[in-house]
């Protein structure tokens, strides 16, 4: 495995970490870009999804948007925006492309989470005299939390991964290390850059899984409910619905 040894050597050379083109600077660019895009996407997608979910309208929109989003290559959007008049405005092409990419999973998952919240519970809460906003904040969002977080997680990981493509269109971020390596036919650098990006993506995924567990508004209750219903459910398949959101038991 000459490539891995070469990559290790590249990574352990201090000179590659410092300066404008160094790893630290690229990492900071990458995180800043991903964070900004994610924040913007949440600001756009979540209010719309929660509102539509609360009203119970626009399901076709939410689902189709996600399907169409998958069909559009981010690379193409990125290049199209770079060549458009926006291209002269710094990072905007990248930011817009990434936001367009992150909105569909956020919107679809949050909407589905709201719709799949137990209708009986919601009706009961309404019967107890809760107002619309109270219902949204204290019943529907906590019930929809797992799916909202699944959407947030997949959007985050995808954005962190896709921000790499900004380098193809001349932007910053860790992808720059890979494209520079390709440009110089320097396989060690290419592999080193790829490892850095992969490790970052996996780290972000891990952090989000932890955050999801710690921030769950119904942390104790959900676990208790699962334990209580376990003997009854044990025989059923049930895996179809649990599969996307389930995490290994602690």
């Amino acid at each position: 495995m000459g490539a891995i040894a070469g990559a290790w050597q590249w990574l352990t050379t201090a000179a590659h970490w410092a300066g404008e083109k160094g790893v630290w600077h690229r990492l900071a660019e990458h995180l800043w870009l991903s964070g900004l895009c994610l924040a913007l996407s949440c600001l756009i997608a979540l209010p719309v999804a929660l509102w539509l979910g609360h009203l119970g309208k626009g399901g076709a929109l939410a689902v189709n948007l996600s399907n169409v989003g998958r069909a559009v290559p981010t690379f193409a959007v990125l290049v199209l925006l770079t060549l458009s008049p926006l291209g002269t405005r710094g990072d905007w092409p990248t930011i817009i492309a990434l936001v367009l990419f992150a909105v569909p999973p956020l919107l679809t998952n949050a909407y589905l989470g709201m719709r799949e919240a137990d209708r009986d519970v919601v009706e009961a809460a309404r019967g107890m005299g809760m107002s619309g906003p109270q219902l949204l904040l204290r019943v529907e969002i906590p019930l929809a939390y797992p799916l909202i977080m699944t959407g947030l997680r997949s959007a985050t990981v995808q954005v962190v991964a896709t921000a790499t493509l900004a380098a193809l269109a001349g932007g910053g971020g860790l992808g720059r290390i890979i494209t520079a390596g390709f440009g110089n036919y320097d396989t060690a650098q290419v592999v080193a850059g790829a490892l850095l990006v992969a490790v970052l993506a996996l780290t972000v995924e891990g952090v989000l899984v932890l955050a999801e567990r710690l921030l769950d508004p119904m942390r104790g209750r959900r676990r208790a409910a699962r334990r209580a219903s376990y003997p009854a459910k044990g025989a059923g398949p049930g895996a179809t619905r649990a599969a996307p959101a389930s995490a290994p038991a602690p």
Partner: protein
Amino acid sequence: MRGSAAGPSCLETNDWICGEYLRTRSQELVDATVQHLGITAVSVAIGLLIAFPLALVARRWRGAAGPVLGLTTVLYTIPSLAMFALLTPVFGVSAAVVVTGLVLYSLTILVRNILAGLQAVPAEVREAARGMGYGPARLLCEVEVPLALPALVAGLRIATVSTVAMTTIGSVVGYGGLGNLIASGMAGFFKAEVLTASVLCVLLALLADLLLMGLQRLLTPWTRAQGRAAARARRGARVAKAGG
């Protein structure tokens, strides 16, 4: 450059939409589209061939399900640019890099959907088939797989559509199909080339999706009959409610 009598051609003014480009570079466009289709089709086919046994293993041995699903999910979080970069030392700069990367991505979606489809086959159906003397292989081929087809095709559609989109990144190693045109268009600030290739890419994805949807309708005629029956039942219920 041969400009038309009416003024400078759209190639000279670098317009986004340019008939001249379509005419003069049609061969290039066709070649890129063929490469794109080839890479996508091969990747999805190999993905399906690998995903199916993996799903069977994950179903047969409960202990294997976690690692199989976990591994394919981890693969999915590796960015495409990094994936292709990691595979270049193994395969050199070749189409195999792109195909392998795309196969690895498609596994996540395919394994999950095939597994979910197989697990959703009702136990009593399985029992009935066994009672009729079906062996495990015949049970799988003639009962379980047909019943799992809707979930399988749903996964196949998602995998195909995202593979069509992701093939463009293959342009970093020169095997990106239409992505090659997008990359070269970007390098030369050639707007018509970028837009045409992008639009073709989206059209390919939508076309592939429609094709698979049609295939599923052909292969699972009973779901349509069920859908009709359900609609009739619903209508009947509504009428009954209105009457009562």
